[in-house]
Each structure stands twice: as structure tokens, then as C-alpha cells.
């Protein structure tokens, strides 16, 4: 997927840089993009390390197992294959719980762990239906309080600040449901690899 994305982006960019005559800027963006990717990854390393450690503590203490029993009726519907085979159920539970609690920076590392765990039991390098559902839910990430946006609004002197939370909740909630439904339908059409 990423290879194709990069190909498409580079062809389009080259084309537009010629038309707009800003080949110099394109040149700089390649170099600065490469170093920016390091900063982004490093900022993720700290969060990943912390949450994977926490996850393991909770797992060894048996807490995630209890939680996954509790959420089983709902999650079994969303991730049918994983909950049938019992692979990565604890990781999925942890990721979804973090998502629902609105701890967005924990949801990312937990989702990575969950997908790694699901992949470790498989041989093919094609994403399974459950992996895709988890990724789509990650894209519709639920934020209990969108702190960054509210902070920017306050800084710019907005009068409406916290009130944006209601539409945000409704919108992300419906996006999640829509994501689950679309994944279910497409999973049926494409089959589980």
C-alpha cells in the first residue's frame, strides 16, 4: 500500500512542481521530510515503550483477561475471527478500551501490538479482516476531550470552546459505527485472507 502511495505522491508532486515552477521547494521538502520522519518516529518510541510496558503489567496481573471477558459480547461481533480463535483478544480489548477512554496516545501502541500479535499467528502478508477493522477504528479515533483543538480555539480568542465536544462525540461515534459496518460488508465480499 505504502509503496503505491509513495509512487503516486512523487509523480503528482513532480508534475505540479514543473507547472508551478517550484522545483527548489520540492527539493527542500524531500530533505526536510526525511529528517522530520525521524523526529516523528522518536516521539513515538517513548509512548510505545511506556504503553507496551504497562500493557504487559496488566496482562501478567490477569486484568486484561477479565476486561476482555467483560467486553466479549460486543467485541465478538466486531472481531469475529479473533474472538473465535482466541488470538490477540487481550490486545484488541486493551486497544479498544484505551480508545473508548479517550487515551489516544495509548491506543496507537496498543493497536500496533494487537496487529503484531494477530500477524504472528499467520503466514500470509495480506491483512486479515479483523486487522482492517481495528485499523479503521483507529482512523475514526474517539477523543473524549479534543484538547489540542480546544487549546488552539482558546488561544485564538474563541467564545465557543468546550461546546464543540457534543458534535465531535456524535460525529466520531457515527464514524465508528459506519466503519464497523463497512468493514463487515467488505470483509464478507473480499473474504478473510
Amino acid at each position, binding site marked *: *500500500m*505504502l509503496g503505491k502511495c*509513495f509512487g503516486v*505522491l512523487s509523480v503528482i*508532486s513532480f*508534475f*505540479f*512542481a514543473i507547472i508551478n515552477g*517550484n522545483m527548489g521547494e520540492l527539493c*527542500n*521538502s524531500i530533505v526536510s*521530510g526525511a529528517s522530520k*520522519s525521524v523526529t*516523528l*518516529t522518536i516521539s*513515538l518510541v517513548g509512548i*510505545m515503550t511506556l504503553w*507496551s*510496558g*504497562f500493557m504487559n*503489567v*496488566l496482562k*501478567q496481573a490477569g486484568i486484561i483477561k477479565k476486561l476482555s471477558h467483560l467486553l466479549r459480547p460486543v467485541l465478538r461481533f466486531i472481531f469475529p475471527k479473533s474472538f473465535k480463535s482466541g488470538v490477540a483478544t487481550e490486545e484488541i480489548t486493551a486497544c479498544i478500551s484505551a480508545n473508548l*477512554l479517550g*487515551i489516544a496516545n495509548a491506543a*496507537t*501502541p496498543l493497536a*500496533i*501490538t494487537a496487529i503484531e500479535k494477530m500477524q*504472528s499467528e499467520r503466514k500470509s*502478508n*495480506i*491483512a486479515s479482516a479483523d*486487522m*482492517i477493522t481495528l*485499523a*479503521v477504528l483507529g482512523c*475514526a*479515533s474517539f*477523543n*473524549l*476531550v479534543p*484538547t489540542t*483543538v*480546544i487549546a*488552539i*480555539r482558546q488561544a485564538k480568542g474563541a467564545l465557543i470552546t468546550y*461546546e*464543540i465536544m457534543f*458534535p*465531535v462525540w*456524535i*460525529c466520531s461515534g*457515527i*464514524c465508528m459505527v*459506519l*466503519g464497523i459496518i*463497512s*468493514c463487515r460488508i467488505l470483509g464478507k465480499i473480499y473474504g478473510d*485472507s
Partner: protein
Amino acid sequence: METVEKISSFVLPCVVLFIGLILLFGKGDCFSHFLDGARDGMRSAVKLLPSMCALVVGVSMFTASGAADFLAKYLSPVLDFIGVPSDIFPLVITRPLSGAASIATFEDIIAKTGADSFQSLCASVIMASSDTVFYVLCVYFSSSGVKKTRYALPVALFISAFAVIFSCVLCRIFF
């Protein structure tokens, strides 16, 4: 409303406190469990760099070449038709691509139309309820070695397109 923020600011510290209590009173060597897990997490995070590099270079080329602006300009009649105000088109393009770029565009929209304008409110809801799709998919799949992501990107893009349109509808209702 601020009480909601106060309560939500308790969530993360409470989870950490809970883990601290397990480390204090749990059976067995809990801290070595932490270290084991943390080591694995660090390893998978480092594995992200190669694909992250390709993604970030691709996206920054796309914005630097002016292709993003062009797209935003020529998509405007289509989006206008479905009720998305024209000032927020740049955000519609940058939101799925990059977090930093979308924050910059978001601030531009506020500077241009005022913080409490309809356009800024729509932009705020879009910012908060959708995510950087390309980045999320790249991060989720690349460290596990999954190559073919099948319908993940189309569904994720469809959801974020829906989020844009629906945010504007909700803003009309709420404000």
C-alpha cells in the same frame, strides 16, 4: 463543560496509578514484566522508521509542490455542492495526510474567518473527529510486516470524507 475536561484529565493518571499499585502490591516480579513489555514496544517502534520515512517524504513533497493547493481549489465546486464551506477545503486535503500540516491549515482558517465563524467551527469538529488516515495505517501495519492492506485505505478515506460532510451538518444544527 469544564468539569468534563477535569474528569477526563483524571483518566490517564488513574490508569498509571492503578499500574503503580500493581507494581507495589502485585504478586511476582511485576517490574520485570514492565521492562519486558517496554523492550518489545521499543523494538516495534524503531521498526517503523523506514516506512515512516517514505510516508513523510511523500507527503511533504505533495504539499511543497503545490499539488495540495491545486486539488483544494478544483474540488471546491464539488464540496460546495454538498454543503462544505469553501474556506475549509485546504483542511479537507491536509487532514488525512499530516497532523502538523492540518494544524497549520486549521490556524489559517481561524486567522482568515475568525475563531467563532461557521467555517472555523466546522474545521474544529473535523479536526477533532477525524484522524491522519495515511499516518495511522502506516504506523499500524508496517511494524508487523503486513504488506497488502486490501480495503483498509478506501474504507478509512470514506469514513473521513463522511466525517467532513457530517461535521458541517452537525455544525449547522448545533451553532
